């Protein structure tokens, strides 16, 4: 089974608050692969990328290092799409 993984840093101003967390989970749920998000930094943690509650609880504010892991048939595509969300700062205006 293919796996994929990417490290990113949260760069949007408000971090993974309600709306971005929802967007992330919505995208993750489009894929069959299991998605796990690992949080680095001072308060490390782990969340199921398909659970909005767990994603919010991560409290990933601006500047938090994250690793997105996917495990399943469409793992590379899932990670790519999810990273894209961070790169476009979830469509937030600066």
């Amino acid at each position, binding site marked *: 089974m293919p796996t994929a993984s990417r490290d990113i840093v949260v760069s949007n101003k*408000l971090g993974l608050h309600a709306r971005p*967390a929802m967007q992330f*989970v919505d995208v993750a749920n489009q894929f069959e692969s299991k998605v796990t998000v690992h949080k680095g930094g001072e308060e490390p943690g782990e969340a199921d990328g398909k*659970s909005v*509650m767990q994603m919010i*609880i991560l409290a990933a504010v601006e500047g938090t290092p994250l690793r997105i892991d996917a495990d399943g048939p469409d793992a590379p595509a899932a990670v790519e799409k999810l990273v894209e969300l961070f790169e476009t700062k979830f469509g937030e205006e600066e």
Partner: protein
Amino acid sequence: MEIKKGTGVSPGVVISTAVVLDAEDLVIPKRQIDASLIAQEIKRLQDAVARCIVDLTQLRDSVTAKHGKEIGGIFDFHLGMLKDKSLVKQMTTEIKTQQVTAEYGVSVVMRRYANKFLEMSDRYLSERVKDIHDIEKSLLRALIGQKHEDLAHLTQDVVVIAHDLLPSQTAALDRTHVRGFATDVGGRTSHTAIVARAMGIPAVVGLGNITAEVSGGDTVIIDGGRGVVIVNPDAEQLVEHREAGRRFDQLGGELAALRDLPAETKDGYAVSLQANIEFPDDIDDAVRQGAQGVGLYRTEFLFLASEHEPSEEDHYAAYAEAMRRLQGRPLVIRTLDLGADKYTQSKAVNPERNPFLGDRSIRMCLHDIPMFKRQLRAIMRASVLGDVRIMFPMICMLMELRQARMILNDVMEELEDEGVEFRRDIPIGMMIEVPSAALMANQFAKEVNFFSIGTNDLVQYTLAVDRTNERVAGLFCPAHPSVLGLVRDVIRAGTRNSISVSVCGEMAGDPLYTLLLLGLGLNIFSMNGPDVPEVKKIIRSTTLEHAKQVARRVMSFDSERQVMHFLREETRKIIPEAF
């Protein structure tokens, strides 16, 4: 097995299966359930989640249509949480491994999340704890709502265990299968107590945390006479209480023998004993107990029993039904007495800060004349069906009474123009339940055909005590000399102006006050049906002369303790088994 002591507010003994009602705005107690019920609780949780998703989607769509995507989007996060499979899974696990109710599963998992949100240092994120509470409440509301619906369609007898019963809840109960009540809070005059006595079923209130100690399906004994509730009784207790239940029914049989005898003192002074009702169905029972009519029809239950405001036809149908069941006996219809309680406050756009001193009762009617007129039209149409009388509640000033009468005159003119029959000289009365009205009874007596003293509110407003607030409910006492002085003066004002006076508060049905009220010259006692036989027994066992002596003596006391002690002694002298 667990024995709990509370306040018995409606006598009788019942042994039955418990249904526990939680309240969404209170902490849900941890209650163990039987392993066989786990699957059922999980199903309830799933149904509740599904229902919340449907409701919330509708809400989001309508808000989006009205206010745009930005505002509607707020609900997307709520929906996201409800659709979060791992969240529902955690709740399911809680129900399974801890063997608890769905309500508890929801509340414990949501509370865990709420705490995590509160721990977050990021202010923006920790504020979202409000959303967590919102979702918890919606889920609990859905779960508790299901239970309410179940209680409306029961297939077997149950007793209801709740924190406190709301009028809207009791209005929806299946009255043929609910055999008793036990609640955490409340007192003798609480809504639960009134409903239980009207239904003639045992009830114990003020039990502290009975909702935490009983699980749905437990066997419970409720002894309303002694104020005791036994959870999961042993064999010996079951035998003992079955016997007690039989004795109580037997005593009821003896009192029922009084039914066809007049409520008349030994020296031939007759009064009228009437019933307070909430629904026309209450009439048959009340008449069976010996009530000679209805002294108080609480029409607000027409509003409480349904989701929308009743139409003129709904009103008329209820009044016509009541007249049919009364077979010529009088019916006093009190116009809408809503407001001040949780029911109206929760529906209000701007909840009032001090609802008991707010827009309630006749004030509310005078602010919503179309609604008031619908009810008045129905009453006037029903007036040709027999002895119908109309009564306005919560009158504080002459202007309110005059305004209400003017609106009634308008209604009569409209009906006349339409060629509808009605009785122009329908007796018009008012409630005396505010000190201002009691103090001006002499002036009011010149403008109405009868008075009815509502002692519950009169005590509340005279002593400034909210009887539903456990912390001060102990101060609520109809025997307070100030209250008794007002009652005496109102009866006097009525007699002097040749209009009839009744008491329709809880005081009228409490045997402790029968001698006193009789001695003060009261003509009509209006009470819950099951109280009629005992009050009648006291009246038939005394003389007017004796009652007058008792009243004179009572009016010379300066504390409620003296009053109650003396009345208890005097009543025991004529009926030793009364207390």
